[in-house]
């Protein structure tokens, strides 16, 4: 079984400040890792993903995330946020083994950008 923990339900940040959204996972198999963003009244959009290779992955809108296997983490970062980054951010995992092809999501972190 897999699980995803997003420690912060809400993160307020001033515009142009850096931000880190935390994600930890647990799994009995190797995983693929994802961050999705949900803007108000919209569906889920992929920000970035880690499948293999370099542990630092870059995504859209200036976001990046680092896979840390020893800490079972996949924290999302952006060096300077914009008001348009206000949204709900979901971390998700998918197991490589056992035939499980669905995504397991965390509870989400609401990023609030303050002017």
């Amino acid at each position, binding site marked *: 079984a897999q699980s995803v923990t997003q420690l912060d339900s809400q993160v307020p940040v001033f515009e142009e400040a850096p931000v880190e959204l935390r994600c930890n996972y647990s799994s009995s198999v190797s995983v693929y890792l994802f961050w999705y963003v949900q803007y108000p009244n919209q*569906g889920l*959009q*992929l920000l970035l993903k880690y499948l293999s290779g370099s542990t630092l992955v870059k995504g859209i809108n200036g976001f990046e995330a680092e896979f840390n296997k020893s800490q079972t983490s996949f924290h999302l970062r952006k060096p300077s946020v914009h008001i348009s980054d206000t949204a709900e951010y979901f971390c998700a995992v*998918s197991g490589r083994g056992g035939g499980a092809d669905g995504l397991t999501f965390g509870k989400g972190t609401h990023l609030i950008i303050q002017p």
Partner: protein
Amino acid sequence: EPEVTQTPSHQVTQMGQEVILRCVPISNHLYFYWYRQILGQKVEFLVSFYNNEISEKSEIFDDQFSVERPDGSNFTLKIRSTKLEDSAMYFCASRRDRMDRTGELFFGEGSRLTVL
């Protein structure tokens, strides 16, 4: 840009009624999914569908739920007799390749179901 489309965007129904939520996945995709998000909670996996059959389902996906791909384009979720706790946003998603290739699920904008 191709996208996953869902209808209706919002449906209100009485408890005990049957509901069908419709999805049109991206045309060359092979794997299809339904997820739900109860208000204020996390997005939960319901079911995956490949090669015209269910490949995986969660414990949420009980006998009240069914999925179908009635033609070459639509992918439907049916709830046979809705309960109050079925009120949620339901997301359809599709994927082209195996997870270890593109790894990306494309999501629709969701269908909000309200059961009274």
